[in-house]
């Protein structure tokens, strides 16, 4: 067997990507924090921050092993046991083949994905969630939902010679999900929907003015997400190569196209292009291109982006029509955007840009790829929705998932954290904060 030699360029890029992807979670905290009212911005940001803490610890104890272990040889979970990463400093990453980067760099990179995915869910249950209940939920959800689903999608098994063990179910079925359209976005979106239903609507939903208290914070957050997303998508190449370049370029143009799509849609519908629309459109495009970024050409990325901007902007209306309080539109942006991007590969995927990819319908590949994509979308959605609903129900019936309505109206920052974000006496512009 040919010996693998560490590639410093690849390793340097992956180390940088780890930091980029981590930055997305504080970025998300700003993105979400700006969208809530002044009385709950700290709680909103804290839901992301505590997730960074909890998942980091879970990962090195057992999370990595549950997601990427291969000893059990199961397509549904990695391996139940201690991650023991300290003993593997000299190993190379092996995920369906050996990469010339340290295993620990791969493990750290995947940890960042495990962090942001539960953090994404928090937007669906803004302003009303008990902090302790959230911390418990993050622990259980990571263990029962994210780590196994990451195995299904991201674990290509441990390859020794020609023998591959422990390949994830969807990875083995040929699902094309480069950076987590299913495992991250559909997973978080379905969970957000389930929790929004379990927790119920906020006090005063659709009666009180619940407008974003700081759009500049939202813009800052979307900028940090966009920046970090280059690590998320291009880093998923696990190398500094042409595929990473393709993923990075596609990420950029899809986000730009989606920004335009959302702005155009709302200008036609409401008469104005808004800053919240620009921030939301960019994120919707980033979500949609995530699974597709290394399987489509840049024109395909533009198409996916524009479609994501328009469809996600439209999907925001669903919560009003159907009557569920998905406070910050986790469903419209992450679930709908994730589904759109994952299925779009079945149409505009092309082996011309990446020999590992298949041709979609528009490239003469027929519907075989679309069927694989639909399987991944359906399976991840169903599993995440059902398990999250059960988890949410159990937490709600035992320790309670919501703060009481008095604390919710007075402000969750004060009741849960004994802090307030701003020294302000009256609400700006006369709205009820």
């Amino acid at each position, binding site marked *: 067997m040919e010996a693998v030699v560490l590639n410093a360029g690849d390793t340097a890029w992956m180390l940088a990507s780890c930091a980029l992807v981590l930055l997305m979670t504080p970025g998300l905290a700003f993105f979400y924090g700006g969208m809530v009212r002044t009385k709950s911005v700290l709680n909103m940001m804290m839901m992301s921050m505590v997730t960074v803490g909890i998942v980091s610890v879970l990962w090195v104890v057992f999370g990595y092993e549950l997601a990427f272990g291969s000893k059990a040889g199961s397509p549904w979970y990695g391996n139940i046991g201690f991650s023991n990463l300290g003993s593997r400093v000299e190993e190379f990453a092996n995920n369906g083949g050996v990469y010339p980067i340290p295993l620990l760099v791969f493990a750290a990179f995947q940890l960042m994905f495990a962090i942001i995915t539960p953090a994404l869910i928090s937007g669906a249950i803004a302003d009303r969630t008990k902090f302790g209940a959230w911390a418990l939920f993050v622990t259980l959800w990571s263990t029962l939902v994210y780590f196994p689903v990451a195995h299904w999608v991201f674990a290509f098994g441990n390859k020794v010679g020609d023998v591959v063990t422990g390949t994830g179910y969807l990875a083995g079925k040929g699902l094309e999900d480069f950076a987590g359209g299913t495992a991250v976005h559909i997973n978080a979106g379905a969970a957000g929907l389930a929790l929004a239903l379990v927790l119920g609507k906020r006090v005063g939903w659709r009666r009180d*003015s619940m407008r*974003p208290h700081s759009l500049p914070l939202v813009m800052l957050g979307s900028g940090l997400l966009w920046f970090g997303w280059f690590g998320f998508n291009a880093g998923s190449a696990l190398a500094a190569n042409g595929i990473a370049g393709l993923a990075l370029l596609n990420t950029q143009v899809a986000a730009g196209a989606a920004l335009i799509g959302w702005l155009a849609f*709302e200008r036609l519908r409401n008469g104005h292009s808004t800053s919240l629309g620009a921030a*939301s459109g960019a994120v919707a495009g980033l979500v949609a291109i995530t699974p597709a970024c290394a399987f489509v050409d840049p024109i395909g990325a533009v198409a996916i982006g524009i479609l994501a901007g328009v469809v996600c902007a439209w999907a*925001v209306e669903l919560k009003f029509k159907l009557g569920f309080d998905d406070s910050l539109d986790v469903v419209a942006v992450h679930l709908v955007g994730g589904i759109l991007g994952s299925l779009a590969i079945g149409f505009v995927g092309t082996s011309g840009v990446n020999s590992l990819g298949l041709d979609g319908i528009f490239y003469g590949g027929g519907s075989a790829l679309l069927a694989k994509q639909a399987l991944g979308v359906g399976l991840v959605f169903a599993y995440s929705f059902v398990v999250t609903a059960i988890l949410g129900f159990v937490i709600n019936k035992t320790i309670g998932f919501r703060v009481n309505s008095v604390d919710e109206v007075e402000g969750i920052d004060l009741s849960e954290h004994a802090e307030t974000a701003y020294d302000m*006496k009256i609400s700006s*512009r*006369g*709205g009820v904060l």
Partner: protein
Amino acid sequence: MKLITAILKPGKLDDVKDALQASGISGITVSEASGFGRQGGHTEVYRGAEIKVNLVQKIRLEVLVTDKKVDEIVKVIVKTASTGSIGDGKIWTTPVEDVVRVRTGETGEAAI
């Protein structure tokens, strides 16, 4: 002695303050206020959800004056704060029984 209370557009505060100082006024009190009058509110749109903002942000300016200066000062405020459009605000005066300067204990007009 009279208390003049003026509800004004926030953007006019600096002009009014300068004009009052030029007219010999030695102190004013300003606070943020919100309310509605003929101006009503406006509609904002967030991700397509329309939010009606019924209360408009204003500033509330209070100034104590001697009886003989009331008309002059009200005229100064009206002249400086008026733009001619709906929402310029409102001014009213109320009689004041007594004024005390906390530091010295002076009362009446000497305390203004």
